[in-house]
């Protein structure tokens, strides 16, 4: 009997236990938070180290390759959705040792280093500017000291621990509010920049600099520096910029920063450098903020099909492209209102102070936070503090993810008996106490090392701070492992590949998904090659190599101890993840 019923392609039982989907916004929110705008601001400032490269094009190129990352991770999540992430994907497709060692470093050990990095960023971009507005200059200066950074890291550790302890549900709610409030702050900043003329911006900037860094609050350093015939600063034998004749000063802070821009050779346009090699060498710096749209992207539910695979891609794409667009728009607005070279001069003034020790900044050793300088457009201290604090929720709201990712990794390793059962212990209130200890105590140690290790003579920062980018390297190595696992999934985990909804078409027997994974892997190798071979990124040195080596050896030792122990108990580690035959 012909009917007008729609063509049904699947008949689902009434009592099926299947849910009909999940909120489309959730995956986007997680990805958006992860491609963090504060990390973006921080990464942009690193472009001062490669003035010949185009920041704009480096961001665009990076985004293109991260789209490939999104396909890879959407594919892994679609094929093995409840598996527990990189650790299980690599364990399943390679073996227990490779999966644990790479994931333990990438999702557990290296995150210890992120805690002082977050603290440093939070202090420089948010706390110090707020303290200056409030006139708490002693406190602001103290935060820049070794002990100040260490204490700030302890605060980050405490916040991250609390956010884990309160449970996923409460943390998710906090994150939701943090994102919306932070975004509202970003929109306000955008509006302020749009409606403010360039001259008015400079006027307000100078007024704030004078108010917060000059007069009774300190001494605005407006001394002029000697330049050569090309307009670049001249340095003495110790690497300090040479003051011109005493008494010669710039008329105001902004003019000085414009001079810093030209004096340090900063580009006049974000496009300058085009697609040159210098632009490509900026990419590892951009990976510091752009590599993470796949962070925490998991699915619930069982109606898993191509639509879910596509939905995952769209949400992670949104999580990548929205902050990328905001960042590019920000660069555009700064170019328009401030002047690109002047803006980069602001960034350079901080790095030249913190790494070379040469004080060419009008405001001394403070980082010129973009959120702070935009807030100065409104000459009202309360407004400025609220705006800076609101936007900072985009950073603070993400802190909990730091420890959450690690606890999942620790649990998975405990279930597989690489770690003892107790590592997955949870209190009656749902607090993963042992996992938290395994994150908290090493993070405190790492924060102490970050703050108190000797200053590297050449780079002017502590030895551990010098290899900040190892925090990215450890995770990129893990991503490479997962990408390679995905590339060979068709052959190494055939049953999972066959039963997945992943597109199976390809060329010459290679699925397009494997080709995408191969290109993405090559991109990661490119980044890792630059990290390892170029001193510019701070990790091309023996101390960094020793640090990373210690982490990988520690992971190997843990695995070996587990392997021997379990073998004696008659439960070989390999058997846990080895596929049971079907026939």
């Amino acid at each position, binding site marked *: *009997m*012909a*009917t007008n019923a729609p*063509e*049904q*392609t*699947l*008949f689902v*039982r*009434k*009592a*099926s*236990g*299947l*849910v*009909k*989907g*999940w*909120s489309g*916004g*959730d995956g986007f929110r997680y990805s958006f938070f992860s491609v963090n705008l504060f990390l973006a601001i921080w990464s942009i400032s690193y472009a001062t180290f490669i003035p010949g490269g185009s920041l704009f094009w480096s961001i665009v190129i990076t985004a293109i390759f991260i789209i490939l990352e999104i396909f890879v991770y959407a594919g892994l999540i679609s*094929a*093995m*959705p*409840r*598996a527990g992430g990189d650790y*299980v994907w690599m364990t*399943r497709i390679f073996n227990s040792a490779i999966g644990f060692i790479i994931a333990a470093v990438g999702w557990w050990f290296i995150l210890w280093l992120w805690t002082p990095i977050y603290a440093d960023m939070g202090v420089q971009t948010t706390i110090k500017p707020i303290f200056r507005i409030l006139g708490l200059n002693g406190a602001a200066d103290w935060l820049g000291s070794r002990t100040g950074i260490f204490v700030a890291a302890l605060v980050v550790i405490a916040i991250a621990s609390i956010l884990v302890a309160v449970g*996923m*549900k409460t943390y*998710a709610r906090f994150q939701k509010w943090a994102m919306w409030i932070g975004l509202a702050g970003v929109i306000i900043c955008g509006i302020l920049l749009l409606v403010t003329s360039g001259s008015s911006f400079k006027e307000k900037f100078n007024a704030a600099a004078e108010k917060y860094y000059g007069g009774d609050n300190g001494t605005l350093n407006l001394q002029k520096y000697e330049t050569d015939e090309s307009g670049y600063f001249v340095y003495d034998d110790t690497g300090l910029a040479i003051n011109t004749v005493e008494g010669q000063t710039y008329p105001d802070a902004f003019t000085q920063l414009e001079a810093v821009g030209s004096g340090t050779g900063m580009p006049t346009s974000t496009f300058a450098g085009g697609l040159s090699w210098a632009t490509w060498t900026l990419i590892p710096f951009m990976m510091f903020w752009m590599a993470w749209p796949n962070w925490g992207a998991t699915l*619930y539910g*069982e109606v*898993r*099909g*191509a*639509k879910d695979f596509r939905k995952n891609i769209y949400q992670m794409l949104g999580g990548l492209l929205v902050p990328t667009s905001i960042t590019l728009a920000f660069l555009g607005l700064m170019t328009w209102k401030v002047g690109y070279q002047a803006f980069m001069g602001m960034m350079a003034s901080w790095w030249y102070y913190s790494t070379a020790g040469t004080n060419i900044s009008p405001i001394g050793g403070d980082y010129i936070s973009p959120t702070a300088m935009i807030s100065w457009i409104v000459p009202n201290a309360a407004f400025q503090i609220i705006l800076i604090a609101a936007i900072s929720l985009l950073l603070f709201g993400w802190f909990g993810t730091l420890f959450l990712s690690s606890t999942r990794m620790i*649990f998975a390793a405990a*279930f*597989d008996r690489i770690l003892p*059962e107790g590592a997955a212990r*949870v209190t009656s209130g*749902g607090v993963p106490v042992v996992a938290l200890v395994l994150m908290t105590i090493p993070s405190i140690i790492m924060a102490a090392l970050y703050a108190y290790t000797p200053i590297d003579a050449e780079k002017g920062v502590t030895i551990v701070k010098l290899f900040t980018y190892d925090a990215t390297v450890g995770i990129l190595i893990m991503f490479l492992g997962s990408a390679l696992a995905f590339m060979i999934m068709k052959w190494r985990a055939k*049953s*999972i590949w*066959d*039963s*997945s*909804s992943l597109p199976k078409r390809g060329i010459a027997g290679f699925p397009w998904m494997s080709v995408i994974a191969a290109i993405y892997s090559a991109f990661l190798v490119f980044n890792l090659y630059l990290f390892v071979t170029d001193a510019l990124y701070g990790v091309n040195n023996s101390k960094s190599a020793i640090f990373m080596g210690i982490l990988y050896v520690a992971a190997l030792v843990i695995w070996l101890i587990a392997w021997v122990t379990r073998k004696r*108990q008659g*439960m070989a580690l390999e*058997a*846990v*993840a*080895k*596929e*049971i*035959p*079907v*026939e």
Partner: protein
Amino acid sequence: MSVRLFFATDVHGSEACWRKFINSAKHYEADVLILGGDMTGKAVVPIIDNGGGKYTFHMQDVRHDLDGADALALSQRAIRDHGYYPVVMTPEQRNEFSSDPDKLDDLFHAQMRRTVEEWVAWADERLTGAGMRCIVCPGNDDRPDIDGILASSSEIEVGEGNVIDLPEGYQLASSGWTNLTPWDTPREEDEPALKARIEGIVAQATVSPDRLVLGLHAPPYDTQLDVAPKIDWESLTIQGQDSAHVGSTAVKEVIEQVQPILSLHGHIHESRAAVRIGRTLAINPGSSYVEGTLSGCIIELDGKKKLKRYRLTMG
């Protein structure tokens, strides 16, 4: 002498997972296989016969066009491995099923029974003379008549409502009934009724608690074993990233009162975990049947009073 158990649950019609379950005895060197509930599938995939040996079906939102009997057979196997039931039909028959819920229900019933019969026959062939035990307890998603098919097996022992002797003086008391769910499944009831049911089964046990294993499909409430995405009961949609404890208070109370050495649970596929409730180790190995992976747990009882060790697996 110790006893090695292998426990898996919630295979939901996945042919691959059923076969892996039966083969896991050899793979993990287990003495006893225990399958927790929910062994029947959730959906029928209509394979439209277009005539001339050509067929069309949709699987996971992807359209597949088949040409010939071999391609059809391969796809039918792939669908079964996924946990769905492939049924070849004409477009007219598909429309009939779309418009007649009772007819569709009969179709589901027939497919479930036929699949379980095939599974039992295959298991009997594999397990005969193999020297290991196999206990299967249907769950809340499984219709009651499945028990009769399982009982007809020469090798499979039916767990539902029974206390079964295990090696080395242990006993297993099982039930696949759960507390109420949003889906009105065949074996669900309110907490007081569930508690009475479980207590009635446990009362049949003749061993001390330190030799008693409970196989209860519903996980204990407010533990790591029962965390599921929060669902709106009307629309059956997930509420953001909110989660909720959906396990059974009755199950938790019984565990707390009886304090068996071990309790085995399923039902919540996402909550793969092991927790201690007093002296009891409660385990939910979760389920990854969708991708054809058998999530399970190896447990070794030491033959005395202790649980020697356990380990979650993903094969």
